[in-house]
């Protein structure tokens, strides 16, 4: 039975469409996504809602899951996401290789960190399997895999020592920012684009806020106050982003990562702005859901099938880049790419749900 449209699925669908558009660099419609007036972007929303979904997956405290079942269920989910990452990376490499071949342009093989795969395949394939080599724009699922591998621990801490969960997460977050440390890439030396030690905090916060007790309960009880504090943050940061009024990063005090606007480390500026944005915009759903039901249902269907839709969106973004290259990025080409892409995302969601219905019936 397909679940009803709801706010979580709706915003997840919104994040997926934004990610699809933002992952086609230079496309006209990226000027319309919320990152143009927000410090944080759809990546924060996606990971926060992944944490929220974990909370729903784990179940309520009144109907607890046994620890072994919890570990098995979450481990299985991590494995599914890992398999999805390996699959889309392989397809992405095939898209790059076939485009290079078809359009007689070997430079396409250099796109998105793919050069190492073609030049040093033995080591780089090991890196792909270990997630230490990630293609550009295919780097959020590795973070998700790590977070889902940590999910049993998160759920168990929540089960047995709930008050410790958020403080522990924040401790790791600030340690990673102040030392600083992150996950390394291999065989090409570098860093993960999404530092899992800092990005875990938004996942844990999403999880904690989905719960009926603890932080989630506190936020829900005081949501009006939270929104009153959040609104000026959202407005002021929108102005800062619009006019690019950010301080010179070299002039900031140490440890700089506490004060910078850095996506890889999910710096506090981004985290606070995202939480404020989420608090403010979460108020809007009950108002416009009845007003634009078709949009609500459309985005919710994407959100309900987020992994499948995300995988297809990532690949379609890459195809979109190739198309833009071939058709010189005209507005018409951009419109066709975005409209067809979003249509295919809807088709992906529809096929996923149709398959589920068939399974349930059979």
């Amino acid at each position, binding site marked *: 039975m397909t679940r009803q449209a709801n706010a979580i699925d709706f915003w997840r669908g919104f994040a997926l469409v934004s990610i699809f558009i933002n992952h086609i*660099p230079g496309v006209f419609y990226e000027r319309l996504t919320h990152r143009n007036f927000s410090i944080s972007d759809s990546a924060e929303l996606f990971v926060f809602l992944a944490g929220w979904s974990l909370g729903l997956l784990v179940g309520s405290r009144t109907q607890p899951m046994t620890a072994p079942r919890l570990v098995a269920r979450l481990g299985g989910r991590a494995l599914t996401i890992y398999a999805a990452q390996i699959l889309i990376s392989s397809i992405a490499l095939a898209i790059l290789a076939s485009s290079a071949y078809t359009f007689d342009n*070997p430079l396409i*093989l250099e796109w998105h*960190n793919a*050069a190492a795969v073609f*030049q040093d395949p033995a080591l780089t394939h090991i890196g792909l399997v270990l997630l230490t080599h990630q293609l*550009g724009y295919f780097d959020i699922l590795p973070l998700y895999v790590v977070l889902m591998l940590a999910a049993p621990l998160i759920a168990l801490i929540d089960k047995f020592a709930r008050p410790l969960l958020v403080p522990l997460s924040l401790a790791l977050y600030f340690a990673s920012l102040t030392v600083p440390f992150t996950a390394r890439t291999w065989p090409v030396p570098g860093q993960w684009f999404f530092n899992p030690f800092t990005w875990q905090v938004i996942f844990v916060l999403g999880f904690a806020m989905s719960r009926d007790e603890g932080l989630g309960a506190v936020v829900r009880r005081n949501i009006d106050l939270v929104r009153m504090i959040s609104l000026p943050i959202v407005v002021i940061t929108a102005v800062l982003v619009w006019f690019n009024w950010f301080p010179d990063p070299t002039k*900031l005090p140490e440890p700089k990562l506490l004060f910078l606007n850095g996506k890889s480390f999910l710096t506090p500026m981004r985290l606070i702005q995202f939480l404020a944005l989420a608090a403010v915009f979460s108020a809007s759903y009950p108002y416009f859901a009845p007003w634009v039901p078709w949009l609500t249902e459309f985005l919710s269907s994407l959100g309900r099938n987020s992994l499948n839709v995300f995988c297809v969106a990532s690949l379609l973004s890459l195809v979109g*880049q190739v198309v833009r290259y071939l058709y010189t990025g005209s507005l018409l080409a951009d419109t066709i790419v975005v409209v067809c892409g979003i249509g295919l995302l809807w088709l992906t969601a529809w096929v996923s749900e149709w398959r589920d219905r068939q399974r349930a019936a059979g």
Partner: protein
Amino acid sequence: MGVRMERSTKGSRLIVGRLCLGALGLAAVLIQGAWAQAPSAKPESTPEPSAVAPEASAVAKDCGEPKVAVTPLPNSALALQKHQKIKILAIGSSAAAVLGMMHDGNPPLLEQILERNIKGLDVEIINRGFSGELAEAASERLKLEVALNEPNLVLWQVGANDAFAQVPVESFERSVVGTVRWLKEHNVDVILVGLHYMKQLAKNEHYQAIRTSLQRITAAESVQRVTRYEAMEVLARTLRESGRPEPRDFGLTEDGYNCMAQYVARAITVGLFAKPAKHAPQPAPTR
């Protein structure tokens, strides 16, 4: 291992081409090694920035002949003078295309060449290349990385993604010029690594417009540009004229990447030993 663009029906030509490439690469390594080991090629341990660039910075013949303008790298030269480590921040879409191929945890080839060729030079390469990034996004991230890592020199591979993404030339130019000026204001040297030569793209208007824009920027802002397009173009022509098969994807083979590392090494070496221009501001004593 090179990636072949030829169709399978041209398999035999491919094999010959690959053998030629292998031979070229081997020759390049041998020639480079010989240069590196020549005692006369090594500068003294306390070089003056105004000294003549050592011969060791020459590029193996089989890599073509990139034109290297004598553009000083005053901040890096100062670090070298003070026996300090030179920190090089690599930003751009393909690490291999700037630093050379990296194997088995060895330092990047660029680091090896520089340390081997300039006595007393201690180099740390910080690779922060993320693929697919356009100049505008890269310039924002570049500023953060400069704040976090305090490099002496930034190697910025820029242009190809903007060319493929059809970014308007004016917008591209604004991003690059703004960032180059910001780096200068913050006493960080910069070398721009230009676009790749590809015969198929020689008539691509936007690709060529971005390339011309980079030329304009480097001339106007007096920054070093690694002219890999021109070097590869010359190499391709030389091979063609001498009756050898023109390697269509030479620049994207391991040999090609290693040539790139040599071009960059040469640009750095020339910059380290170049006489500072009279009108150029002196680097700040400390960073």
